């Protein structure tokens, strides 16, 4: 674990793996809840957690290294189920990358359980880990990906909360509302949330 200073009020804590980043994120949230840590933002990402709004980053950096960080605890909370029509335009390409047929891509994607490792890109866009195999981004990003597109890139799967440009491989669509500022909570998927995709009949 390495704590890198970011300006005068933030620390970027770098760990070795995505699992360690998730475990560190859970530990940081626990410590903030108990009052042991004061931070405005705790932002998990692929291999790091950013802490912003710290009063004494260098003191925290010294303390951090001695922490014992348990693996991500099993969660009692329910798994969020996202119904998917596997009708995405890139389904054949993903099948070709994996050397399987399209039905097997659907089985693999819907058969796994995922966890939101981190969010970014757009409000409510979660990077979900748990994909059984990786797949490259598209060589040329699309200028507009429709809202509700279920997509893959690298080790991640995710759902576009709103129409935006994007380079991920589109394998399906969902009617689930990923982001609604009028709802509490606004984001369907927050870091740590467990997720399953359930196939709907394609017409």
């Amino acid at each position, binding site marked *: 674990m390495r704590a890198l200073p970011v300006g005068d009020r933030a620390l970027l804590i770098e760990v070795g793996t995505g699992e360690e980043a998730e475990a560190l994120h859970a530990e940081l949230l626990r410590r903030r809840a108990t009052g042991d840590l004061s931070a405005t933002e705790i932002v998990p*990402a*692929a*291999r790091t*957690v950013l802490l912003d709004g710290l009063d004494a980053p260098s003191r925290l950096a010294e303390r951090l290294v001695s922490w014992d960080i348990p693996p991500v605890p099993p969660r009692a909370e329910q798994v969020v189920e996202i119904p998917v029509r596997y009708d995405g335009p890139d389904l054949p390409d993903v099948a070709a990358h994996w050397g399987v047929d399209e039905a097997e891509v659907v089985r693999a994607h819907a058969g796994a359980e995922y966890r939101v490792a*981190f969010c970014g890109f757009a*409000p409510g866009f979660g990077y979900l880990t748990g994909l059984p195999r990786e797949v490259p981004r598209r060589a040329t990003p699309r200028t507009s990906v429709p809202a509700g597109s279920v997509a893959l890139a690298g080790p991640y799967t995710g759902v576009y909360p709103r129409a935006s440009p994007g380079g991920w491989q589109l394998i399906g669509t969902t009617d689930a509302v990923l982001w609604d500022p009028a709802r509490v909570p606004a984001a369907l998927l927050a870091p740590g949330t467990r997720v399953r995709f359930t196939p709907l009949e394609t017409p």
Partner: protein
Amino acid sequence: MTDDALVVVRAGALTTVQDRGRPGHAHLGVPRSGALDAPAAALVNRLVGNSPDAAVLETTLNGCSVRPRSAVVVAVGGAPGPVTVDGRPAPWGAPVRVPGGALLDIGPARSGVRGYLAVAGGVAVEPVLGSRSTDLLSGLGPPPLTDGTVLPLGRPCRPHARVDVVPHPAPPSELVLRVTLGPRDDWFTDTALRTLTRHPYAVSSASNRIGLRTEGPALERSRPGELPSEGMVLGAVQVPPDGRPVVFLADHPTTGGYPVIAVVHPADLPGAAQATPGTPVRFVAVRHRR
């Protein structure tokens, strides 16, 4: 509709509703947003007796015109420029009473970029996640104003300030940005680090509320490959593949995949909000506060 409203007659190049932003949601991919020149927004709020959290209008370069439906007290600050009420000159940087139905015009900025208009009671659009700010990156909050937009106003709560003149920093003729190196300065060559802090850059016309883009020598990376996505702070100096540093402003993305070579001192960011395209930029390295 109630009379406590402002009709937008001329929206200008880009006029948005801004308050102090929506911190605390970066982990959900929600930018902080908020007024780019926060001290100017706070000042106009103080002048009309608003709380510092009240929403104001942020204009860009050529101001805007509004018509209140009933009499209001307003204050204009930020980038200095002409202010008129029904064509008659009115003071800049001081409380001004505008009769109901009169046209308040904020003209083009004489210097600087972003003007601020506070109305007693504040702009009372519906908050999203605790803020009324327009977030251009993710589309949260009210969309940028268009001609004909009607903005609801809150009830004035305190008497406005009594002032003759207010101090304000002049928009910079040269933008000096103090930076602390890191967190990814080790992704760049020693030459790149020297170039950043010794070579003058210039504000690019491609700058916006997301980032202050610069023109100047490209910063060369010492290692190839991709940086996995990581959290970004306000003032982060990110270096995209073209090598030209971008200073992240209020609507910056919450995570990003290009290395951050340095972070700008927060006190220097209001100046970045007012620096016109072409303004020389100097990055001055300072040590981390211990």
